């Protein structure tokens, strides 16, 4: 019998296989959009060659917030209290600014109970990737409307939503997030590219990913069903991402594309599907979002990007060393300093 060489498993630039980015087995419903998002996260981190040990995963409470258990088990993870993940993430990033923070939230966790912390996280432009797995309903409590549910959307029970939705993207853009996108769990390529670009950004990345709930909100009359989103998705731009470690560049046409140089040297190419859309303009982004609501479109793509605004770590002029790792010789002032303080009080 001829010996066959075991094929080497494919590895990324730091020598890890995609299996090294796996998590526990999902306990979410079959077909849940959140599982697809977990897969895209695994692919993006793997392809970008980011060591899972350098990553922290944070979440609040809800179906979405369970999902960090289902990817990247080699990363530390923190499942916090309902709606309050942003503050935990803020503290964690301040303690170790070298860490890559990935927050996973849901529409209830973000837009209702957590709206206060969400607002202030965006405002601080903390370096974090904040994903809303947005299905318009509370899944774990069996299908009540959330605050991102569209006006007129219908529950399985026949209840019609009579309040307008909170557009988390428009909110994030106005508040100070510096990379804001909307995608769809069923749009594999777009979400995958967007996540890779997110990893190249240093500032708050806010991605609202429509992620249908197959159990409670995937029926006729729902505006967060697979069918509705597929039928109404309106991509703003076609995304291409060139990581900084790729030597070969691809050509792009300056007339029809915009090139965004990311913080780590990567490039994000946005091929304009809409003729004059400028993703560096807050006004254009918010205006286009409002139009999309009126037109019942699910507008997706990179809505806004700003790579020059200072992030929170820059703003507070903090040392580059992780605060958590500073030695006592740095964090405890000398005996002489205490004596000086005492003398001033005599």
């Amino acid at each position, binding site marked *: 019998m001829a010996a066959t060489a075991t094929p080497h498993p494919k590895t990324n630039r730091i020598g890890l296989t995609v299996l090294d980015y796996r998590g526990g087995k999902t306990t979410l419903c079959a077909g849940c959009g959140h599982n697809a998002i977990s897969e895209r996260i695994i692919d993006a981190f793997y392809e970008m060659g980011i060591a899972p040990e350098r990553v922290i995963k944070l979440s609040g409470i809800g179906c979405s917030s369970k999902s960090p258990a289902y990817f990247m088990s080699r990363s530390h993870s923190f499942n*916090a209290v309902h709606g*309050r993940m942003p503050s*935990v993430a803020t*503290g*964690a990033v*301040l303690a170790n600014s070298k860490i890559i923070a990935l927050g996973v939230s849901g529409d209830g966790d973000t837009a209702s109970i957590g709206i206060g912390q969400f607002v202030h996280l965006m405002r601080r432009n903390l370096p974090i990737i904040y994903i809303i797995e947005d299905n318009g309903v509370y899944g774990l409590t069996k299908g009540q409307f959330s605050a991102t549910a569209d006006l007129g959307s219908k529950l399985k029970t026949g209840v019609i939503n009579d309040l307008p939705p909170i557009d988390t993207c428009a909110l994030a853009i106005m508040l100070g997030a510096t990379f804001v996108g909307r995608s769809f769990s069923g749009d594999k390529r777009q979400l995958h590219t967007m996540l890779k670009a997110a990893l190249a950004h240093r500032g708050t990345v806010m991605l609202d990913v429509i992620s249908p709930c197959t159990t409670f909100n995937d029926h006729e009359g729902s505006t967060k069903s697979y069918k509705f989103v597929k039928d109404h998705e309106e991509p703003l731009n076609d995304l291409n991402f060139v990581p900084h470690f790729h030597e070969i560049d691809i050509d792009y046409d300056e007339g029809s594309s915009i090139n965004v140089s990311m913080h780590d040297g990567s490039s994000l190419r946005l091929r304009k599907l809409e003729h004059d859309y400028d993703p560096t303009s807050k006004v254009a982004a918010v205006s286009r979002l409002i139009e999309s609501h009126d037109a019942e479109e699910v507008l997706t793509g990179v809505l806004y990007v700003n790579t020059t605004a200072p992030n929170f770590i820059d703003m507070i002029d*903090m040392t580059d060393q992780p605060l*958590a790792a500073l030695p006592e010789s740095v*964090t405890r002032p000398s005996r002489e300093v205490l004596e000086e303080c005492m003398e001033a009080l005599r």
Partner: protein
Amino acid sequence: MATTELAVHGAERDAVREPVVNDFSIQVATVNGSGSQSANTVLLRTIFQMGVPVSGKNMFPSNIAGLPTWYTIRTSKKGYIARKKEIDFLVAMNPETAKEDVLALASGAAVLYDEPLMLNDLRSDLTFYAVPYDKLCAAVCPEAKLRKLVKNMIYVGVVAQLLNLDMVEVEKALRKQFAKKVTAANLNWNAAKAGYDYAASSLTKADPFTIERMDKTAGMIIIDGNAAAALGCMFAGVTVVTWYPITPSSSLVETLIDYMKEYRVGLDGKATFAIVQAEDELAAIGMVLGAGWSGARSMTATAGPGVSLMAEFAGLGYYVEIPGVIWDIQRVGPSTGLPTRTSQGDIEFVAKLSHGDTRHPMLLPCSVSECFSMAGDAFDLTEQLQTPVFVMSDLDLGMNNWMSEPFQYPEKPLNRGKVLTAEDLERLSGFARYKDVDGDGVGYRTLPGTDHSGAAWFARGSGHNERSQYSERPDDYANNMDRLAHKFETARMLVPKPEIVRNDGNEIGIIAYGTSHHAVVETLDQLQTEYGAKADYLRLRAYPFARETHDFIAAHKRVYIIDQNRDGQMLQLLKLDTAVADIAKLRSVRHYNGLPIDARSITDDIISQEGK
């Protein structure tokens, strides 16, 4: 509203009045926002500089300007620094309260008042001094809009002359107060001199109160508890500080910001810390836990309403086992309550803050010195025990100036607790976050960012097993809760021990904590000298209670628990922790009117309960 609580009128004045030296209290009644705080601090510091033990208490309204404020300075040659009920020397600057303030005085007190108020007809058993402030102000302060401020320094001069204060010390205190603001210092100094000269030429000393130099304050400092706590936190190596402004805790973090900017910015100009003003207390505690989980020494400071908001996260900190220090500068509740008055009203709530079975260690500083040292204890304990630790100060301690011996530099290195590094993980075959390896209930943790493929664990507020995996198994849940209870027993051994004063092992024991201490010290003397009653005294310094506390209760027939709250909150906690046979011994002394507790109230209450 008067703050003296008593009005003993009509007592006969002594025919010949013995001088009262270094043992009386001065009260300045004014309106807030009038700038009197500087003047009062100058008075306090002057007496301090003359070597006389002194304490100052500010009773102020929850308001920016225009409402009544009282500042009380107590001098005591015996070194008593608790509030004294009786006011001996009133400086009546507030027309709104002047009449009531005067009527509340005990017979024999002295009153300094603004001439147009004509208070001298109110009582015949007091000594009155009228001062024409407006006239004196106009002479020293040409600028009309500054006169309101300068007016205060005039009473400093008058008081200095009447009480025999050394004007050299007044000037020194005044120039320290105004530091680099030389023009303001000069203006104020002129005002003080004008007051002094007026008193010397126009007033005749007719009260017995006077200050004489002593040597009891040499080398000592004056500081408020919040500033002391701030210093303590800086020297404890704090790196992440979050806060939401709330009286009376704001000045703790504001002072900390000043100190950290001065002493904790590296040579490269970069901060070795992060201080974040959060959007609310929910976020403040969330950030503390996030930072603690990541391995930073993190803290926040708040008061009752903030603690209420922190309840859910406090339970998460307990259950996920994350370090973090929370300062509760207690004020009067419930609800908004009296935001600028002192209380020990959060004790029972904080001990069990959050839903489910939750317990938190609390440290109970009684002095500015302990605010400093317990900051270090709190950070060591929180990392050692991997659980949030609360430091229960109060408004009286936090916002008032106290004299103190200078603080001791911490000699022990920081105790960062059980943290596994990548090298440790390489050496060990496995790692289970919540396994009780050492038998003390405290597991080993790893920090995010640890460069080892086996380092990660999943911090979750949901049920978990030893490996921090999601679990709803009854045995996993119960075992974990039992280990947490066991960890609390470890805390019992690690927290600061109580301090015990024995006076012959008599029948009576007194247990107090926090700022009540200063009143109890005086009460012990009152009981002995006035009633011949000897009492032993135990001062709690932490919760959970150490074994010594149980022994103390067992060794006495009647034990009085002093609480500055209505419901005897520490008494309630003690009852839960005391042997059934001993519970009947516990008696309660409670003080809860928003004013700092005083010795006389405690003494009277104990004597009444003793049936004497």
